[in-house]
């Protein structure tokens, strides 16, 4: 601020003399973020610390018996419990299948629906409908459609000569079915994010490229995709984190089966906490999940930094 400009009004508010601009900014910043920070501390940080404490105890919510066991829950999960690694594997497979499929489909839909044309609003709503359909209704319908014999999916496959598997009763196919149905249900959200991002890309860039004779694919690869990179990163992070937390969809579709083939970590944690009431063990599992997801997130951010360079 130029002192020579005598018509400017002095700054209101923090008129404490001697406080530098930087200091003032810092105080204002902390004040403005204080509701978020205080609320976060009470309703998340506190409970998180509590969860870490619980994770070091054997605590049954029903019997109220609590005994401190140090890291026993962790060693139990990682070394003794045979189920844990199967569950971990399922979670990783689920995420690895869901995230690329979701993002690719979201992008494809967004590319189709980002330019205005007659009926675009209608279609955007249709592809968003699953997001607001109740999880229960969604599972009922898909379980019906995926029947081994009478299901519509297999009947359609049969009409082209393919013998479809009993989708929800074969461990591997069940995982595929659960992933695909989850993607269809949630892709509408990412689609909207991509549509918005696409709309900020100035048309001139695309036009210029096209004038130079680029094909659709080249335009996409050279112009659109790079400009979408930041969006892609955020969506990937959120979708990855979300895919590790999916529980109710799997619970309703397969109950974790068949043969625990779709038992993912979030489901396992639910079982421990809400069916067996073993809060201590569930807390340890949650902390393990937290560490893994945090690691994955940091990796994704690091990769992006590398890309930018």
């Amino acid at each position: 601020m130029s002192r020579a400009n005598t018509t400017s009004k002095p700054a209101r508010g923090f008129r404490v003399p001697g406080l530098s601009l930087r200091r003032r900014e810092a105080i204002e910043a902390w004040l403005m973020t204080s509701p978020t920070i205080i609320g976060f501390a009470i309703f998340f940080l506190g409970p998180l610390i509590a969860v870490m404490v619980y994770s070091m105890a054997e605590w049954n919510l029903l019997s109220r018996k609590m005994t401190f066991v140090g890291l026993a829950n962790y060693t139990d999960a990682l070394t003794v419990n045979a189920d844990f690694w199967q569950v971990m594997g399922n979670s990783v497979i689920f995420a690895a299948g869901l995230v690329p499929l979701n993002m690719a489909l979201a992008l494809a839909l967004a590319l189709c629906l980002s330019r205005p044309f007659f009926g675009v609003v209608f279609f955007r709503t249709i592809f968003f409908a699953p997001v607001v359909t109740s999880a229960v209704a969604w599972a009922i319908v898909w379980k019906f459609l995926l029947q081994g014999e009478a299901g519509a999916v297999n009947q359609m496959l049969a009409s082209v000569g393919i013998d479809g598997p009993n989708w929800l009763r074969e461990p591997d196919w069940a995982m595929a079915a659960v992933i695909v149905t989850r993607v269809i249900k949630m892709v509408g959200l990412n689609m909207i994010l991509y549509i918005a991002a696409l709309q900020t890309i100035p048309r001139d860039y695309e036009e210029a490229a096209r004038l130079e004779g680029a094909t659709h694919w080249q335009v996409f690869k050279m112009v659109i995709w790079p400009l979408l990179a930041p969006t892609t990163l955020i969506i990937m992070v959120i979708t990855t984190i979300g895919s590790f937390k999916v529980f109710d969809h799997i619970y309703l579709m397969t109950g974790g089966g068949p043969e625990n083939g779709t038992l993912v970590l979030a489901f396992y944690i639910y079982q421990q906490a809400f069916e067996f009431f073993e809060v201590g063990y569930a807390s340890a599992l949650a902390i393990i999940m937290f560490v893994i997801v945090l690691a994955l997130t940091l990796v994704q951010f690091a990769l992006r930094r590398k890309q930018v360079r």
Partner: protein
Amino acid sequence: MTTKQWRTLNRVLWTVSLLIAAVPFVFPFLWMLSSGFKSASEIFGQPSLIPTVWHWENFVEVFQYQPFARQYFNSVYIALSVTGLTLIIASLAGYALARLRFAGAGLLMLFLVSALMVPEEVTIVPNFFLIRWMGLTDTHLPLILLPVFGPHGVMATFLMRQYFVALPKELEEAGRMDGLTTLGVWWKIALPMSRPALAAVAIITFLFSWNLFLEPLVFLSSLELFTLPLALSNFTDPYGAPLWHLQLAATSLAVLPILAVYIIAQRQIVESFAMSGVKG
């Protein structure tokens, strides 16, 4: 074929393909709506979209079974409160994180992001004890406080931050030169410019609060205080088996407002997500 004919053919093919692709998306939704009109025995027969007999009385029975209208109202006002509070708090913090430089900003953001990574099945236990200690069980307050200040609030803060970062600084600097404090700039300049982002956060937050199940289950006891997801799971016979015709009719009623809001605000959402500078 002329270019015009080619273009029309193209458009028709495009539309038809989209319609075919849309079938798996919209079929369950339509089934859910039509099942509300079916009798209990018909629902699990062939999944037809047209009921053989239109049981309009299902919808009447929904309101007679439990204080459904009251529960509907609960969900609405809680969602509106959560949305309103989140918008204010998230935009305040988001603006600070975007514009003001202060020590610890990076670390703070890392802390906040980590909130998204812990499943709520586990944090609900200590939260339950906390709310109990505060004496707030069987009230709606925890249903408002937890979404606003919990992981979802954090995500909202980040969205707002991204948007503010993308805003051109000139207007704000002009405001400063006019003598406004940071708060003044926020209120008079940044917020009005960020209406699309606010709309986006509003939609997601409303949807999030509308669908909450675990928190109401754990904190509420009185039937009149229930919110919709809880009320929906309560349409059961004395043995706990769901009364599907009632549950699906009620679910259809519960879904329509959100869909209506989405359709209306769709324009805003798209623009706002664009402006939310999700470019990082």
